[in-house]
């Protein structure tokens, strides 16, 4: 059976449309599953500014009433088993019958017809589509939706389904384009839905419409003598603003090309949703493309309108640009002391001062970047927040700092850092090219984490109003990608000390523990595709805080587990056992003593000691010189015969306390050699030995 379902609305926000598509499919099939019905064989969802819709084909008709005989426990089963069986079958105990030595239950399964269950299911669906914000519109109803709902159309194999939501009752009709074809017409059959809508000037398929927008924009840009500047985000937005796109190219005064390209693009895409047009070398032309929802009678009329609005905006932009350049960027630093960074964390000036300290600390720790330039970049990095342009276009922070700094004759590396310290702005964004931007960006992120955690505003659940997850991921990516070697925990401590004058920021060590835990959580996510989760856990929880080394140790562990899994697991199991014995001893409050070689009497003990001394050298070479952690794992594997022999022949918990303590000391020495590699107790081993 085939279902067509459409919710007709007033114009939905562009960004709401695509997420709703994916949600509808999973909801629909899951709900059918809950009712014991198989899902659709094919499911296709549609979204335009004025409708959310889907077609589901190959739906089952449902099933008839059915009586089944089901066999249970033997007839002599105790009362408890009888009751359990009856309960499970949903029948009374007295109704169970005996046959062939077993108990039987007669179970009735009520039939279900897809036709009957769909209206309720669809109503639940309308009520539960998650939107970022919903609204009421009807006087007396409390139902809410992203925007007012005007029609609901539902039909199963052409048979109308009765669905009610808010003040709307379903009818098997739909509507075309708001302006080009506003009339009502019969809801098309499932296999004709998209084609029929297209006839009524609605491209229902998101990807098809997006492609149409792209084609239109390219056509119009060609008319203007260029190509559209690639901008997928804008394409997506515009796709959600039109049911049938029609592009118009326009132009602006050449003189505005003096504005930095970032400004021009922001002016065009930000408020106006226009596409910038560039030549084949990527240089902006004085043209743009606007995408309309309607094909107007005379494009010259709307073009004039588009151009007027943009002209006003560009004039504003030029005004800001000219005003901003009247004073050097450096003179704006003082103004930062009148801007709050964040309630409880002082001013932007105090923040910039902290960033300088922290960046210089990172510079010292990593030995990368030029300290003098870094100090200058740190001082300037927030100054552009006080410019008119960034006030108008917050997304240009950093970009304007760079432009204005270059205008003032600041060294290009420093100017670049003003922009690059904001990178990466998201998971997909690029990283800084230079050390100055990277180090400053890391300082910025560390300061955010420590400051915001410090005033108790850490993320909770899905709420992360200050973007700390993003900050943490950025910090980790920067450190690993640029191979910065430093103790991150020390950096956090230093950042905390920089807040010492602020009583609102906790100076407790617990704060650092909390942030470190948070960072490890993000790091686990970051490394997820590099190794198994338990390997990641084991490597990260060794008390080491230098990320590059941690990553190397992880890759080594992963490689050895991949290469010789069985052998590794046996060794790891032995080390897990050692860790257990030591922790049990600690629980029993057996005091740790130094190893006395002369007390090692059995050959097994002596052999283990010799092997230990041998491998200790190898391991410390890996840690201190080569960073070839595979060698350390090889050393670990080579110990296996001696370890096995030791456990076969020696009883650690000897009745003689001196013997016992010395054997524990031997194991402890062994443990200490390998513990920095990984916390073996966190590994999940397939075989336990």
């Amino acid at each position, binding site marked *: 059976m085939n279902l067509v379902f459409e919710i007709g609305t007033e114009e939905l926000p562009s960004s709401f449309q695509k997420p709703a598509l994916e949600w509808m499919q999973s909801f629909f099939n899951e709900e059918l599953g809950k009712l014991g019905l198989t899902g659709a064989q094919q499911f296709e969802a549609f979204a335009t500014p004025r409708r959310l819709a889907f077609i589901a084909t190959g739906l089952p008709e449902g099933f008839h009433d059915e009586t089944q005989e089901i066999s249970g426990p033997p007839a002599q089963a105790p009362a408890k088993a009888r009751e359990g069986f009856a309960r499970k079958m949903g029948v009374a105990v007295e109704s169970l019958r005996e046959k062939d030595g077993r108990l039987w239950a007669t179970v009735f399964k009520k039939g279900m017809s897809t036709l009957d269950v769909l209206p309720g299911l669809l109503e639940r669906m309308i009520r539960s589509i998650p939107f970022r914000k919903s609204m009421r519109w009807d006087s007396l109803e409390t139902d809410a939706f992203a925007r007012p709902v005007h029609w609901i159309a539902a039909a199963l194999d052409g048979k109308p389904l009765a669905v009610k939501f808010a003040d709307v009752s379903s009818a098997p009709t739909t509507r075309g384009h708001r302006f080009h074809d506003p009339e009502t017409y019969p809801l098309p059959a499932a296999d004709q839905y998209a084609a029929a809508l297209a006839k009524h000037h609605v491209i229902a398929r998101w990807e098809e419409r997006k492609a149409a927008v792209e084609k239109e924009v390219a056509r119009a840009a060609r008319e203007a003598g260029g190509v559209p500047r690639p901008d997928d985000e804008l394409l997506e937005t515009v796709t959600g603003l039109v049911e049938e796109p029609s592009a118009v190219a326009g132009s602006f005064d050449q003189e505005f090309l003096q504005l930095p390209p970032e400004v021009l693009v922001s002016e065009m895409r930000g408020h106006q949703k226009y596409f910038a047009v560039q030549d084949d070398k990527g240089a902006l032309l004085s043209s743009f493309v606007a995408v309309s929802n309607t094909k107007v009678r005379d494009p010259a009329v*709307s073009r004039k309108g588009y151009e007027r609005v943009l002209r006003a905006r560009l004039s504003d932009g030029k005004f800001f640009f000219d005003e901003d350049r009247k004073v050097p960027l450096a003179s704006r630093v003082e103004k930062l002391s009148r801007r709050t960074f964040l309630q409880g964390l002082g001013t932007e000036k105090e923040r910039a001062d902290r960033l300088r300290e922290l960046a210089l600390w990172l510079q010292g720790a990593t030995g990368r970047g030029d300290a003098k330039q870094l100090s200058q970049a740190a001082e300037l990095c927030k100054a552009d927040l006080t410019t008119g342009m960034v006030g108008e276009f917050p997304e240009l922070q950093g970009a304007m700092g760079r432009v204005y700094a270059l205008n003032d004759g600041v060294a290009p590396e420093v100017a670049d850092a003003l922009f690059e310290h904001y990178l990466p702005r998201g998971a997909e964004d690029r990283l800084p090219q230079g050390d100055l931007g990277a180090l400053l960006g890391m300082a910025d992120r560390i300061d955010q984490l420590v400051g915001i955690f410090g005033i108790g505003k850490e993320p909770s659940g899905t709420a992360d109003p200050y973007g700390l997850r993003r900050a943490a991921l950025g910090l980790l990516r920067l450190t690993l990608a640029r191979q910065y070697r430093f103790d991150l925990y020390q950096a956090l401590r230093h950042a905390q000390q920089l807040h010492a004058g602020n009583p609102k920021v906790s100076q407790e060590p617990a704060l650092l523990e909390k942030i470190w835990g948070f960072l490890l959580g993000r790091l686990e996510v970051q490394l997820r595709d590099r190794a198994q989760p338990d390997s990641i856990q084991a490597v990260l929880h060794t008390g080491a805080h230098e990320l590059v080394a941690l990553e190397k140790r992880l890759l080594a562990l992963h490689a050895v587990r991949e290469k010789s899994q069985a052998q590794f697991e046996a060794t790891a199991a032995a080390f897990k056992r050692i860790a257990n014995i030591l922790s049990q001893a600690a629980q029993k409050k057996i005091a740790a003593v130094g190893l006395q070689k002369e007390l090692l009497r059995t050959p097994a003990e002596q052999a283990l000691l010799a092997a230990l001394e041998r491998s200790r050298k190898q391991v410390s070479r890996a840690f201190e010189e080569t960073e070839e952690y595979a060698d350390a794992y090889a050393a670990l594997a080579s110990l296996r015969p001696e370890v096995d022999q030791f456990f076969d022949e020696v009883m650690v918990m000897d009745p003689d306390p001196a013997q016992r303590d010395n054997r524990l000391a031997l194991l402890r020495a062994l443990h200490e050699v390998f513990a920095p590699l990984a916390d073996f107790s966190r590994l999940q081993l397939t075989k336990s030995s």
Partner: protein
Amino acid sequence: MPNATAPTDFQGLLLALQTYWAKYGCALMQGYDLEVGAGTMNPATFLRVLGPEPWNVAYVEPSRRPADGRFGENPNRLHQHHQYQVILQPAPTDVQDLYLGSLRAIGITSDDHDLRFVEDDWESPTLGAWGLGWEVWCDGMEVTQFTYFQQAGGFECRPVAAELTYGLERIAMYLQSKDNLYDLVWCTYPDGTRLTYRDVFWQNELEQSKYSFQASDPELLFKLFAQYEGECRQLVEKKLPLPAYDYCLKCSHAFNLLDARGAISVTERQGYILRVRKLAHDCAGLYLATRARMGFPSLKDRALADKELSRYAELVKP
């Protein structure tokens, strides 16, 4: 380029909108006689959208935004602009079509123009009000703010009212093909002389900008803010929501003046906003309670009135 039926001067635009909405059935009112930042702050909107009583109204609101003053030099920005404000409560099902009809009445049709409803979440932190709707675009220019009120003064709007706020200067610039709003024609005298926007408002823009940015006395304004706030509170105590709300508006304007003067630091700003919001909330609650005590008199459907009254029982309690 508007079509032939388009009004050719500023007052023609006002008249066309007045005529259209009067014909629809709106009561034509006037802008409020106190300084407001937007037509929404006029009690004809802010208070009347509370409670279940029907209310259809349209008026021009001269709206003062001290921080937007540009000494009469900017071709697009003003200290005081004019909004055409329409409130339809409850929001009619076909309100979008009604609105598009009003655009036709001023010569803007979808045959000639790219008309689009672009998502916009409206929120007024000082009024504790929010709603969802759109900016309506005509060829890329925002011509109207279209909002379904969800809350005012922190109270749920039931029924939901539709608010249409037309930016008159922008629309007029568009209709008259002017790039500088001071070149707009306000009207043409019988002898053919044109009265321009510059003639009417330029001096006011210059002087008001000087006042807001340079000449105002922040100390006095801080004092006034506190006094207005006190007056609003004591009037709330005396159960006089309308006079109390007047003082809430005065507070809001004093705050806007202080803000434009740069006299309020970023840290203090939120505190002042919250103080005004508290006043707005108290006025709104008192207004609702007062109307409820009167039995929501303009609600014809008395069965509905009784049902709605039960919803506000908590507020009405002495």
